[in-house]
């Protein structure tokens, strides 16, 4: 049975269902209950955005408020995972990866290979990504390319509540470290989400719209803007195929390349900065492997190569818009 719930509720439900199913799953992070040690409500915040609200009451002892000490608690999550637990650690804003990245990319991501396949590290590190919250340069980044660059990390970025639930459940059951990127401006957006537990496999993109003229590839918040651009273009007779990658590592190359083989045109939309981005990664691979199918130059629509600005006027210009995406489609169609 499905009903409309927000992405925030869908993530909460995924955590609750997995904690119910598997006693080795526990969650930890700064303020995820938000009342530890105080004389007030033990579940005061339920996470800074309320994503984990209500869980401490259902799972006492398995919802751990941590000190502001990212290296220690992310490392502890990694260590517990290496010892058979399935921790889900919330890093609040994934920008904070800067203070604990060693535990993720030198430790968690490397164990399996470095130890000859004898280790597994089923840890999920989830947190907020993306701009649009007026949170400025250190709380708004789309760092997905940074994580995707590291072999051994799986990188997930859902665009809606349905995908968020299925992908998070899959992430918790996966035996590799997963960076689960939640766009903060999607938390409140509702979709039809089944009550029951379900998984969405990694490496399976979602084709949201068929079209024969141009392929638009995106993930996260800009999926909605890509759809908006495609609807607008359809009124002018240009039919775009819109692909939501959903998982960036692994990436569903087959779906992307099959689509480009059919349309002959590609627009990559990425909220990350342009250098060494998801957009440039896909553009390069498609240029290499689908060269003969291309009828026009590949276009990339990304954030500018600058930090995220604070001023609302500037920030609104920062994230790729439906208009920019439509313009990019027209540009490649003009060739």
């Amino acid at each position, binding site marked *: 049975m499905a009903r409309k719930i927000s992405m925030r509720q869908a993530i909460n439900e995924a955590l609750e269902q997995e904690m119910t199913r598997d006693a080795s799953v526990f969650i930890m992070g700064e303020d995820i209950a938000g009342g530890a040690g105080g004389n007030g409500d033990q579940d005061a915040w339920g996470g800074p955005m309320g994503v984990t609200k209500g869980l401490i009451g259902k799972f006492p002892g398995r919802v751990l408020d941590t000190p502001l000490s990212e290296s220690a*608690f992310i490392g502890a999550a990694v260590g517990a995972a290496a*010892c058979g637990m399935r*921790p889900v650690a919330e890093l609040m804003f994934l920008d904070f990866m800067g203070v604990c990245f060693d535990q993720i990319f030198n430790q968690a991501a490397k164990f399996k290979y470095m*130890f000859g396949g004898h280790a597994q590290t089923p840890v999920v590190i989830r947190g907020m990504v993306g701009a649009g919250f007026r949170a400025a340069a250190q709380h708004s980044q789309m760092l997905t390319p940074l994580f995707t660059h590291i072999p051994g990390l799986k990188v997930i970025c859902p665009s809606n509540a349905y995908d968020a639930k299925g992908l998070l459940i899959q992430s918790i059951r996966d035996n590799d470290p997963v960076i689960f990127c939640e766009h903060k401006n999607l938390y409140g957006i509702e979709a039809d989400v089944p009550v029951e537990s379900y998984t969405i496999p990694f490496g399976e993109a979602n084709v949201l719209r068929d079209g024969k003229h141009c392929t638009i590839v995106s993930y996260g918040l800009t999926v909605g803007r890509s759809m908006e651009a495609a609807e607008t273009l359809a009124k002018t007779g240009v039919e775009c195929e819109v692909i939501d990658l959903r998982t960036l590592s692994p990436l569903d190359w087959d779906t992307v390349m099959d689509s480009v083989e059919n349309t002959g045109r590609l627009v990559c939309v990425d909220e990350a900065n342009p250098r060494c981005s998801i957009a440039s990664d896909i553009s390069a691979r498609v240029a290499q492997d689908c060269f003969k199918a291309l009828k026009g130059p590949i276009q990339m629509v990304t954030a500018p190569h600058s930090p995220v600005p604070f001023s609302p006027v500037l920030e609104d210009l920062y994230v790729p818009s439906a208009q920019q995406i439509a313009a990019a489609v027209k540009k490649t169609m003009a060739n």
Partner: protein
Amino acid sequence: MNAAKKSTPGGGIFPLDKPDLLVAYRTMRRIREFEERLHGEFAKGDIPGFVHLYAGEEAAGTGIMMHLKDNDRIASTHRGHGHCIAKGVDTKGMMAEIYGKATGLCKGKGGSMHIADLSKGMMGANGILGAGAPLACGAALAAKFRGDGGVAISFVGDGASNQGTFLESLNLAAIWNLPAIFVVENNGYAESTSRDYAVAVDSYVDRAAGFGLPGVTVDGLDFFAVYEAAGEIIKRAREGGGPALLECKMVRMYGHFEGDQQTYRAPGELDDIRDNKDCIKMFSERVIEAGVVSRAELEAIDREMTAEIDAALAFAKSSPSPTLADLSTDVYVAY
């Protein structure tokens, strides 16, 4: 193993009976033989990469690890061979790993700085200084969740005792009352830089107190002092008494890495270490003098260890190297 004092058949008052004294000697000799042979082989140019020897520090690793079982975890350092051996890791697999061979414990993908054997509770040597402390917190957290009485030991040198990861871990272990023990192996040098220059406090007991942890400093050259102090701390942690810090004051018989000219040492310092601060020699003299063990018994162990390491070296040298097919296995490859 029981840390309680036992009267020995020879009449000496040691905290271990004769069979355990021989186990301790065998472990220390196994480490020394392993490291000294590596020193010789490295000079021939046959061993790739960086090698950091534990020779001179055997009493500490052995005295601590004799209290541990396979389900107790340790997070080691770049100078990890001694920890591995004392935790029961096979010397053949270790040697082959150090030679980068397919028969190595990590299939030749880890090397000296990343030897791990999770089946023995050895969570890995670590190329990142201080990185093991959060991992040990996680292992301790996992043990606490399971309620299996397991403990986790984090090793750092005096150098890495200044890392934020280490200091954050002391706090995290303290607030969560984790069965974690933080061992500072103070050999006087962080690579080439002296401990007295780089550590602001004179005593690690003071540093532990700053985090609300009990701390103990012992003469790390004295096997019995380490054994007794570690026994008390580990027993306390097993029984829910929480974390502690153990500083072992020790010496490094070789350089930071093989090839280090050690010109930062005072003239005569190394001779003094060899002549007067050899922890194995000190152990032997005490047990022989007490009449508990004969010199002939110890010499028999020496010969046994020489033969074991001969065999390990022969195994490593004659083993096949990994092949192209191994390059991309044991990692999640998304590309």
